[in-house]
């Protein structure tokens, strides 16, 4: 049990190192322009440029620059923005993290519940009109750009139907911290949660249905039928349990990817001040230190989350757990 865990952790460290090298390469070794000019932003004075060049070590070889950068990002954590002069980047990212987590956690609850509902309902009635209708809607769900769904949701809940009984409770765009007013926190996030969840309900519903239909052709289901178990028991105790394996591993990956930047578009459309929105604002002002910090921290988080999922998964699966 211990050996695979250590192996996975070593792999995680390798991938983190790899990603940091890739990010560094993209930001500092892309041919075309002076990296100091990129960092310092538009309209930088020669003094600022010289200062940037020195403090990032651009007059030294690439490995030294890489080490200096990692030091600024992860050890000293004193990387500053040049667009909003003097603003410390990393505290801002950490401050924004709870917003992103609130958004993704709520959406995850919705998409897991409805994804299972859709998958089970479609598989249980496979071939019927309900099955086809649900699968069509799921495909529509995965075919819609999330930022457009968010815009349409805003149009309906903030403007067109805001004064109807349906949406009069929806507060204006923005975020209220959970600690300040839990009820407002909830009300403000319901529409963003649903918007973000739609894609994943479609995706998970389709995958779960396919897995369930496959499971129904297995011998152990025939055995269960032969024992005279009820259809409901066959579905929930036998077919669903094995089919959830894919579901769970997908969930780990998607959750990590969303927290690490995938929720960016939803945050932008709903004006939620999370890590994604910070990245977006930095994009608009070409604030490279900021973008680099969010990209680096988010991808490190994603890699870490994936490793945790894999380890948890190995621990849950008796075949893997008892292998060594």
């Amino acid at each position, binding site marked *: 049990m211990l050996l695979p865990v250590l192996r996975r952790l070593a*792999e995680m460290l*390798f*991938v983190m190192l*790899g*990603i940091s090298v*890739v*990010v560094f390469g*993209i*930001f500092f070794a*892309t*041919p*075309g*322009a002076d990296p100091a000019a*990129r960092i310092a932003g538009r309209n930088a004075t020669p003094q600022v440029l010289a200062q940037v060049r020195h403090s990032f070590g651009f007059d030294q070889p690439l490995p030294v620059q890489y080490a200096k950068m990692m030091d600024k990002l992860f050890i000293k954590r004193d990387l500053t923005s040049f667009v909003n002069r003097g603003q410390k980047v990393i505290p801002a990212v950490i401050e924004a993290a709870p917003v992103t987590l609130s958004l993704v956690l709520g959406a995850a609850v919705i998409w897991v519940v409805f994804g299972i509902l859709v998958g089970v309902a479609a598989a249980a009635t496979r071939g019927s009109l309900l099955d086809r209708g649900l699968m069509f809607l799921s*495909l*529509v769900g*995965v*075919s*819609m*750009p*999330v*930022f*457009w769904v968010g*815009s*349409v949701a*805003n*149009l309906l809940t*903030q*403007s*067109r139907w805001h004064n109807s009984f349906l949406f009069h409770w929806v507060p204006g765009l923005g975020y209220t911290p959970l600690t300040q007013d839990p009820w407002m926190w909830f009300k403000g996030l319901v529409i963003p949660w649903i918007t973000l969840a739609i*894609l994943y309900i479609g*995706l998970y519903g389709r*995958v779960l249905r*396919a897995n369930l239909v496959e499971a129904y052709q297995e011998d152990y289901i025939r055995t269960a039928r032969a024992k005279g178990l009820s259809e409901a028991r066959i579905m929930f105790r036998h077919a669903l349990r094995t089919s959830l394996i894919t579901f769970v591993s*997908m969930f780990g990956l*998607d959750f990590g*990817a*969303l927290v*690490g*930047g*995938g929720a*960016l*578009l939803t945050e*932008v459309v709903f004006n939620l001040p999370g890590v994604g929105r910070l*990245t*977006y604002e930095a*994009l*608009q002002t*070409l604030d*490279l230190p900021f*973008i*680099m910090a*969010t*990209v680096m921290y*988010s*991808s490190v988080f*994603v*890699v870490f989350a*994936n490793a945790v999922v894999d380890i948890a998964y190995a621990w849950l699966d008796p075949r893997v757990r008892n292998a060594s």
Partner: protein
Amino acid sequence: MPEPASASGAAPRAEGPWAEAFRKLRRDRTAMGAVLVLCLIVLACCAAPLYARYVSHTDPFQSNPAGQITIHGQSVDIMQTDSAGLGLGVNPIGPTWHGQYFLGADGQGRDVAARILYGGRNSLIIAFFSTIVTLVLAALVGTVAGFAGGWTDIILARLLDVLWAFPVYLLAISLSIVIISSGLQIGPINIPSNSLLIPIAIIGIVYVPYVARPIRGQVLSLSRSDFVLAARCLGVPGFRILSKDILPNVAPTLIVFAPLMMALNMLTESALSFLSIGVQPPAASWGTIIQDGEGLLYTQPMVAVAPGLAIVITVLALNFLGDGVRDALDPRAKLRVRKD
């Protein structure tokens, strides 16, 4: 395990696997409907200059704040005086449902319908060519890694692992912001920052691991299979095994991926353009038009809603076609494209 190319022996009528798949696909009504819809969309977008010239009578790239059009014999301002709207005292005209300004005007007085047709060209071009980039690179990397084995495989597979763990949007954002802020200079080749090649290359590259990993696995198991071993024992040279035994068996996988990847790439392109790091103004794509419409969302929602519908219809058709192609070529549905 995919069957080698001579699997038709048991069938009553000799028919290659490609012909059989094609026949299955042609019988699939949903897939054929999707093909029809896609053809119509491509034709409409190709006809964009004709539409701008003969129907809307405007240049969709020229801002036109002082223009006027004639509806029912009355002359109407394109930018109408309005206390709401942009907060500038003017609000662009809404859908006229006539030839001119069929879907209304955007914040600069440009014809939205004509812009959607022009934008569709860019969206389709980027989605199509980035798919080609993904498939070619993935086939190359996956085949080389799987077939060569040894250190080549270890290095390529690790590289794919790193890219795969990198969140797609973050990778695309990092690449875009660096390249778009200053263009790209590789030796004598200078790619300006508004070139369509940039989003094509970026979107094409970020999805390579999603296709290359399954291809590598397939090539790995093929190169250990008995018929490849037999060929090796007969002294068939490596490149011939690759072209005659491996590639024909990998090709169906690539074709199954093609429509699904194109759907995914179209969504990615629209997202990058929405974030203003995809197609650069004055050129348009469906994503940039949605972004133009954000400021007008509550007053003239059509500017943002219409291009979004165009994306949904196109991507939905591609996904339906993709499902059909998969059912035809890969009946047991081993491949799945992850969308996130």
